[in-house]
Structures are given as C-alpha cells and as structure tokens.
C-alpha cells in the first residue's frame, strides 16, 4: 500500500496511449462504427473523465481497456505495473455484485482469485469496507442492501484489488441525488489515498467537473474526441463547496456548450432509426 502512495518517478508519464482506435461491430443491419479514430493520452495518476451522449461508444472504449472487448484497428498501449499488481479493475454500471456471495466475499473477489495470503486479504478488504462504512454489513448478501450500499461494495471490490488503473462505467447513474453526492465524496476521499489512474465515464457534466482532472467530451455516434479540457480546480475538493463557486458554474456551462450539440445529434439519430 505504501508503494501506491509514493509518486513513481521512473514510470511512464503516460499510462494509457490510444492511437487511431476504431471499433466496428457486426450487426444484422451491417457494420456499426462505435469508435472512430480515437487518439488519446491519459497521464499516470490522472482522474480522466469521459462525457458523451448515450450510445456514443464510451462504454465500448472502457470495455476494450478492460479486456472485455477487442478493438478493430489502431493501437492500445497500457503501461503495465512493475510488480504483479493487476493492470485494471472495472466498476460496472448497475448490479455487478455476485448475489451468491456476502458483502465480504464480493469485496474480496479479486484478491481471492489471485490467491493472496489470507491475512493480506483480510487486511485490505477490511480497510476498504471500513472506508466505505460497510464493516457492519460484511455478512449480508447484496439483496439485503440498498442500491447505494451495493455500489459501495463494488467500489471496495475494485480498490481492494489494488489495480494500476480504475475503470468506472457510470457507477453512480442508478443512484438518487443524495446518495450520488455521498458516494462522489467518498470516492474522492479514497482516491486521494492512492491517486491511481482513473478512467471514469459519465453522462453527467456536474459529476465530470466535480471529480475529474481532465474531461474528454465525445461526439454522438460514432464516438470521436470532440474536445478535451483540463479542470482548473485544486485538490482535495469538497463537492458542495466546489459547486457553490461561480467558476464552477462557468466551467460546467463551458462543457455543456460542447456537449449540447452532440446530445441533439444523438437524439436525432435515435428518432431517425426508430421510425
């Protein structure tokens, strides 16, 4: 754990390097271009946000990086961790916990799969369940938890695995506004401990500005890089205080101006294909 907090000096400053990445799906109605010629550098330790209208291929991009999908053309370079830590762990959208495992076993999943020593598993899982306020619920099953608590388990599962990169696919989209706020603050707090490279997908501009160091706005289908902006707010951040500042509103508006056109285009595509 100490290694993770120390700033690596010799490591590659770029963690994820995408060059002309394209992904085409074969569908019944012919090839479907999901990602179009995407070129992108994500620096080590960057909290990188991707915003885009639904159906723009952001989840596809994340799934390619998670090894759950293969890309069609272009290159993906992910600099591997020096030790035997896993390269990435994904926090999925929606219910991804195993209903047949307790909270504890779910959170320990990655470590159990890697057959780490029992004491170390106990240490790490205990730490993150504690950080997410779930220690008391370790023996419960997911169906006994609220949606917010389930997503906390899923965050603990990814963090406990101590990966080099965290891939987060709209992890808070199913939560109500209050729970979302709490979890965003929790995520920031836990992330400050380790400062891992994060790739976070969202359709919420607020969430992107609140959490991210850098934001990429994606175009409507097919997914391209529309604009990439650096978030000018210092860390550590307090979500509510940040949102009360006038610069925050300005910056959100700024992102929206890029996004608005794409959202309208996405809607036009939807209406075009459904009629």
């Amino acid at each position, binding site marked *: 754990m100490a290694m993770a907090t120390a700033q690596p000096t010799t490591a590659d400053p770029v963690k994820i390097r995408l060059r002309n990445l394209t992904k085409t799906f074969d569908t019944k109605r012919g090839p479907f271009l999901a990602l179009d010629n995407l070129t992108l550098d994500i620096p080590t330790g960057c909290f990188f946000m991707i915003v885009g209208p639904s159906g723009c291929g952001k989840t596809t991009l994340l799934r390619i990086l*998670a*090894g*759950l999908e293969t890309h069609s053309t272009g290159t993906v370079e992910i600099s591997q961790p020096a030790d035997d830590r*896993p390269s*990435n*762990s*994904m926090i*999925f959208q*929606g*219910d*991804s916990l*195993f*209903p*047949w*495992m307790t909270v504890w076993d779910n959170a320990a*999943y*990655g470590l*159990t*799969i*890697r057959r780490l020593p029992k004491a170390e598993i106990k240490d790490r899982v205990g730490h993150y369940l504690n950080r997410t306020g779930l220690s008391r619920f370790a023996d419960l*099953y*997911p*169906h*006994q938890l609220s949606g917010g608590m389930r997503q906390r388990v899923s965050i603990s599962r990814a963090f406990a*695995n101590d990966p080099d990169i965290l891939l987060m696919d709209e992890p808070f989209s199913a939560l109500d506004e209050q729970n979302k706020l709490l979890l965003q603050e929790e995520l920031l707090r836990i992330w400050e401990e380790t400062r891992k490279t994060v790739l976070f997908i969202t359709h919420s501009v607020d969430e992107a500005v609140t959490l991210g160091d850098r934001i990429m706005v994606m175009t409507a289908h097919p997914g391209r890089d529309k604009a990439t902006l650096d978030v000018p707010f210092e860390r550590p951040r307090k979500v509510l205080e940040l949102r009360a500042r006038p610069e925050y509103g300005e910056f959100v508006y700024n992102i929206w101006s890029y996004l608005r056109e794409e959202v309208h285009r996405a809607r036009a595509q939807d209406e075009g294909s459904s009629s």
Partner: protein
Amino acid sequence: MTDVVQKPAAKAAGGSGFSFSIGAGNVDRLMNIASPVFLLLLWEVAARMGWIDVRFFPAPSKIFQTMFTLIENGQLWIHLKASMYRLFWGFLLGGIPALVLGISMGLSRTLRAICDPLVAATYPIPKSAILPLILLIFGLGEASKIVMVGIGLFYPILINTVAGVLEIPKIHFDVSKNFGASKLQVFRTVALPGALPLIMTGVKLGVGMGLILISLSEMVGAKSGLGYMMWNAWEILSVETMYVGLIVIAALGVLFSLILNEVERYLVPWKAAR
C-alpha cells in the same frame, strides 16, 4: 422481572394483541394434516361397512397392521435398504456427470451445439422402454438398477443445470473475466453458485424420477427392494403388502423433498431469504 420486559417483543411478532391467535399459516398447516387423515378415516369406514371391495382396497388399519409385521420381521428394512443403496449410487452416478456436463454446456457454446441434439433426441425416450436393454447389458445384479436410476436422474439435472448457467446475467461473467479468473475459477465462483437454484430444482425432479425408476426396475429383475416387495406381493396376492410398499415410497418422496428443501436453504441462502 426480565420476562416482563421482554414480553412486548413477542406480542409485536404476533401482529395482533392475542398471542395464541391462529394465523393463516397455521390454518394451512392444520388443513394439510386434516385432509389425509379425513380421507383415511373415510376409507376405513367404507371398508368396514362393505362399501368398497376389501380385496382391492383393504382397510387402512389392516395395511398398518401388515406394515408393523413387516417391520418386526425385518422384511421392510431389507427391502428399504436395498432400494436406498441403489438410489444413492444411482444419484452419484447420474447426478455428478449431469452437473459437470451441464455447467460445461452452459459455459461453452460449442459444447452446447454438439450435445443439444443428442440430449433432445434421447431425453423423450421413456426410461421404462430401455429397461430390457439395460438388463441385457448390465445383467440382473445391482448394476442394472443403479444405471436405471442414474439415467433417470441425469436428464432433469442436466437440463436444469444448463438452463441455470444460461440464466446468469452476462455482467457476472464480465466481472470474473475482468478480475482475471481462470476457466476453473469461473466454473467455481460464477457458473456453479449462479446455477444452483435451478440445479436444486433439477435434483428434486431427478429424485422423484429416481423413485419411479427404482421401483420399476426392481419389479422386473431383482430379489430385493421395495419394487420387488410389491411385485412379489402381487404374485402371492398379499394386497396389504402392496399398499405398504406404496406408502413407504410416498413417505420417501415427502422425506426427500423435506431434506432437499433444507439443503436448498443451506446452499442458496441468497434466494431463500425473500
């Protein structure tokens, strides 16, 4: 003194203020017991009054009398033990391959493509129709009975296991892949536990099928077992003994379903607690 403090909790659990009130569940349970008892009584009366032919429908009291005799002279135990022994080995012989093949088929599209037509073609064959063939191949000894039970158990467990794996949401497989699970680990941590609810359904159906087939196969080529006992009773016209066999098999069915429900509650706590 502490008793007085704890009383309100019990009251709250009962719902109403009167703690001995008969809930809907109790009424159901009462009727569950009352209906067979009533039927037995009616049967007893009908037999004694001569409304039914006691050569075919002996009075329940006579049947239970015979049952006690069979228990006392040890006959019933011998046959029961023989049947249970075959059922047990048939369960292992048919159940374990069905489980392994079922999960593998659920996980592998290729294996499904290969095995699906074979299963579809062989499943509808009445198991009783292959009994002569099984007797021919495995002889009149224990093997043929065990194989019959095994075959009977194999299909319901296999088919339900495949369905159980296919019903697991894809996201769970994505999670295990992303966390680097090996094929064996996916089998153990996702496919098997995820399919367990339907596997248990398959086991319950399979055990029922096993009971049918064990009595059937013991009627044809055996010198022991509940099936043999009933067939022998037909040959010597001991109708009461036939009924004893029926009652014991029915009781076994109930007992197995109770045991399996408990096993299910233990193995699938995440489904039972709803």
